[in-house]
């Protein structure tokens, strides 16, 4: 086994970039810091690919499984004699895969941003934040133990907060960033408690120990049963809560659409390709524990994923803000991945779902980043997010058009594009393990195709809006990433994932099951067809359909009023019914009591002042009665 210590640079370079551009960014011309950041990321990308190639191929002994190894580790703090938190670098199939994803997309986004953010105020700040995010994400990916993961989990959260709120003078952006942070924070509460329980039961944070089939987590399923579920199950469900928060699973998804307030490259990087799949990554990380120690928790994962994907897909069909459509589609796709993990078994061909989930994560990163960047280019050209202001853009911006189309086809699961393979694997897994979920996903496949092409057509075809200044193709800095990603989303599907990324590290045979593949392709095509009919030309059908569905349409259009529910809880309950009473109670009862004491003392001081009447005889009287009182007490009462 050769030495991977250099992988330490992968997170450290972005950190250095962050500190450098953050502290000195304002000193020199903005573009400089942009270039520095991009070159830095280039290095990181090279390193990541090198690592991947070495790990998967050069260093890999044929026929052996892929083992996980610690490239580096150092102690961070001792909680107790048993529990110690380390920081380190863990190399194993999924982490390497994530390295590829993160570095690639991040690098693309860096290049893209050079063009997209040109002339923005705080250009340097933007790039330093990007580096911060990359650092945190890398740290999260390479975490050797669950606590390190939690640390970077939070850092990722805060960098997303910073990037969403990049336009900090825009109230909507501010509130969106706040929302994102608080919702995920709330989810992380579950994550933290989960970690507490897990570490309490197993006396370790370390992933290798946790997931090893002979490890404490799996062999001795500790913890008293509570509500019929074992302690470890609860722990894992709580951990998953954290994952659900980051990955915008129902009902913790509400921050994701608002997060689109951030600059589009950010959406592409954080809210499409990398951060939002952290939840999936987390579950994949702990997968052996889930599947061997707590299958119930795994069911929760599966159902949450399935429901979210359907829920999101339905909403996506009704949105008109293109970024929001993409956001919901992201949510839906992540639902896919979760479901894949949820229905998977451990080891061998049972582990198909696990493989498929990661596979889809990989491909999805490519085409969803592509979609977002494309959307960015369009917004750049049209200066609007709303598809109502668009139409017939295909002749103005051909490259964008083509790449976008490719992406749409990919996500719709058209054969021989990457999306087809991964999604097909997922459906197969579901088909074998959980029929109801399979049906849901089958429907979602159709919906996906529909709303993606609804989007596509209403942007590039449809009515000829006349723009007050004719939109033009984006500059090379933006189109090149598009092309690269398009390439990725076409060919990513041909990677032999079933040999590389498997639940137990052992390769297994996977082949396309036509019983599943053909229907799914067909329903995809159906969806496309419907979309074509409805949106290729300006027609009345959408309107009529909307009115036809009536209530249901409205609900979906208003995202099933989730935001309102949350608003009610926070604004009304917490602010008015808890916080304000507490403040009042503190001022008037607790503090009032203290003041009351003072007032009582003062009052009594005035009450007894009559004793000091100034008259000698009264003094004498008090004197004598005092003496007599003493006599009575001590002679008769004692």
């Amino acid at each position, binding site marked *: 086994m050769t030495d991977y210590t250099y992988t330490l640079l992968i997170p450290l370079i972005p950190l250095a970039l962050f500190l450098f551009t953050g502290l000195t960014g304002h000193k020199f011309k903005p573009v400089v810091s942009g270039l520095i950041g991009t070159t830095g990321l280039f290095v990181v990308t090279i390193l990541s690919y090198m690592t991947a190639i070495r790990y998967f191929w050069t260093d890999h002994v044929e026929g052996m499984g892929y083992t996980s190894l610690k490239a580096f580790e150092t102690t961070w703090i001792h909680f107790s004699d048993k529990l110690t938190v380390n920081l380190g670098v863990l190399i194993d199939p999924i982490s390497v895969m994530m390295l590829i994803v993160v570095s690639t997309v991040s690098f693309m986004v860096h290049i893209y941003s050079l063009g997209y953010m040109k002339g923005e105020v705080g250009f340097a700040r933007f790039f330093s934040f990007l580096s911060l995010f990359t650092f945190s994400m890398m740290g999260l990916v390479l975490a050797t133990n669950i606590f390190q993961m939690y640390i970077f989990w939070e850092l990722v959260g805060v960098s997303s907060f910073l990037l969403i709120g990049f336009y900090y003078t825009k109230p909507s952006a501010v509130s969106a960033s706040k929302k994102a942070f608080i919702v995920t924070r709330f989810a992380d509460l579950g994550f933290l408690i989960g970690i*507490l329980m897990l570490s309490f039961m197993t006396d370790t944070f370390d992933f290798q120990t946790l997931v090893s089939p002979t490890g404490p987590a799996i062999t001795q399923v500790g913890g008293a049963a509570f509500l019929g579920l074992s302690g470890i199950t609860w722990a894992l469900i709580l951990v998953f809560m954290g994952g659900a928060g980051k990955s915008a699973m129902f009902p913790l998804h509400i921050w994701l659409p608002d997060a689109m307030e951030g600059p589009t490259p950010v959406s592409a990087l954080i809210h499409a390709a990398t951060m939002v799949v952290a939840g999936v990554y987390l579950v994949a990380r702990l997968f052996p524990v889930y599947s061997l120690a707590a299958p119930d928790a795994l069911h929760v994962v599966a159902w949450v994923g399935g429901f979210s994907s359907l829920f999101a897909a339905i909403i996506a069909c009704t949105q008109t803000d293109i970024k929001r459509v993409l956001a919901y589609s992201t949510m839906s796709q992540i639902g896919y991945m979760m479901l894949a993990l949820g229905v998977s078994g451990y080891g061998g061909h049972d582990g198909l779902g696990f493989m498929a989930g990661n596979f889809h994560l990989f491909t999805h990163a490519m085409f969803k980043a592509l979609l977002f960047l494309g959307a960015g280019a369009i917004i750049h050209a049209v200066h609007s997010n709303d598809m109502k202001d668009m139409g017939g853009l295909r002749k103005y911006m051909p490259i964008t058009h083509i790449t976008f189309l490719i992406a749409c086809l990919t996500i719709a699961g058209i054969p021989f594009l990457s999306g087809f393979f991964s999604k097909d694997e997922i459906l197969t897994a579901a088909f074998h393990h959980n029929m109801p979920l399979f049906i849901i996903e089958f429907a979602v496949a159709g919906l996906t195709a529909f709303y993606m092409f609804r989007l596509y057509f209403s942007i590039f075809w449809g009515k000829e809006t006349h723009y007050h200044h004719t939109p033009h193709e984006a500059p090379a800095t933006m189109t090149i990433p598009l092309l690269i990603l398009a390439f990725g989303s076409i060919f990513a599907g041909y990677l032999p994932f079933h040999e590389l990324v498997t639940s137990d590290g052992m390769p297994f045979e996977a082949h396309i099951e036509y019983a599943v593949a053909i229907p799914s392709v067909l329903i995809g095509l159906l969806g496309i067809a419907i979309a074509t009919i409805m949106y290729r030309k300006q027609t009345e059908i959408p309107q009529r359909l909307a009115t036809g569905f009536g209530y249901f349409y409205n609900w979906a259009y208003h995202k099933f009023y989730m935001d309102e529910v949350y608003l009610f809880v926070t604004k009304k309950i917490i602010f008015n019914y808890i916080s304000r009473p507490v403040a009042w109670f503190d001022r008037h009862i607790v503090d009032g009591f203290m003041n009351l004491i003072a007032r009582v003392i003062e009052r009594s001081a005035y009450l007894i002042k009559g004793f000091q009447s100034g008259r000698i005889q009264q003094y004498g009287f008090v004197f004598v009665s005092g003496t007599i009182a003493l006599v009575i007490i001590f002679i008769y009462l004692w």
Partner: protein
Amino acid sequence: MNILTLFVLIPVLTTLAIGFTKNMKQTRLVSAVGMSIQLILAAILVFMYLGERNAGNTAEMLFTYDALWFPSLNIHYAIGVDGISVAMILLTAIVVFAGIFASWNMDFLSREFFISLILLATGVFGFFISIDLFTMFLFYEVAVIPMYLLIGIWGSGPKEYSAMKLTLMLMGGSALLMVGLLGIYFYSAPSGGQLTWNLLEISKITIPIEMQRFLFPFTFIGFGILGALFPFHTWSPDGHASAPTAVSMLHAGVLMKLGGYGAFRVAIFLMPEAAQEQAWIFLLLTSISVVYGAFGAIWQKDLKYINAYSSVSHCGLVLFAVLMMNQTAFNGAILQMISHGLMTALFFALIGMIYGRTHTRMINEMGGLMKVMPFLGVVYVIAGLASLGLPGLSGFVAEMTIFFGAFQHTDSFHRILTIMAISSIVITAVYILRVVGILLLGPIKDDHYLHLEDAKWHERLSTVTLVIAIAAIGIAPLWLSDMINVSLGPIVDKISITGFQFVSLF
């Protein structure tokens, strides 16, 4: 000359020197010099301490010095430090240093101001170095009294009221404390022999349990009042709100820590049995104050009130951890004291600087300050992130340690309280982000904020010092927590040898 004595001597000499200064410039120069020396000394002390430990010196207290003071009452001037007190001393030195620079332009009665400020510091340092209960109590009150003048003369708003309230409530606390200490003294030799005030000697014996039952509440609440224990915390919002910047910094930063430190060092350490019996009462109170303070902070409009309530919440966490009574929790408590001391001092410094520019502390009258004063804005955000427990900053380390310590109790009573306490981090996030959002971000509320200038050099110095400290602890907590852990060993032994089990409701 014992190095620890210097920690009391230097401030006293500084005050004397200030007495001879002519004008504000000289005054602040002298005090800055004095406190810088103090800071350097503290750093030296840390290295000396670690050196001694690495050299294998396993004594419970190092650099001890003992002089008989009142022979007939066996009162000694006994000083010594272990990892905990060293850490607290370092904290104090940093905060005082920052405080001096934060109040750089105190032109009104500046001499008196700096003298009383440094007197306060003297008391705090003395408290942390002394291992004799009498001197401890003496320094404790020395630290408390200057607050009255500092708030009453240089304060703002209803300063007389707040100052008086604060002083009287804290003195009421010391009333309880005195009873507790006297009781401890008179039972410090149950098997006959010389009574003593010396912490270490008392810790070797066991105070009769029925006496402990009587004395523990006095001692714990006595210190707890200074530690903002619910429902005795109400001096803190008013006091902080009226106090001048540096004073709030010192008060929330270090003075409130005297409470936690004392509750730990005296109440728990000397009376573990009673502590274990009565812990659940105070655990309820503290966990209430953790959540309650956080919720109280959400509603406030005044920056200082917000921070005061968050202090109630965080200090509540300190006492909460202390009452959990295991090594991890203790370690967390100490870390929390330090981290809260640093970040709340930073907060108050920033609030003072912002107030000095906008002349209001009402968040709804401000907005978009990030654009006009980026430096202060960024630092404020950092402070906020530290206080909501972002990894890489000190708050996270402390809170996590506390939670992991508290979680080691398996009974549902402790579990529930622990989860209550943990949930406070979300509420913290809510009010911190609320403030950041309203105060710094968004459009600029008022046009004549546009020409406000950013931080001056001394303000930068004072804030950056604190930020560095916060980040240092947050990124590399190992040395600090180990330093504390080593010293916690004997204390935990003393507590664990007592065979009692926690009395829990479930």
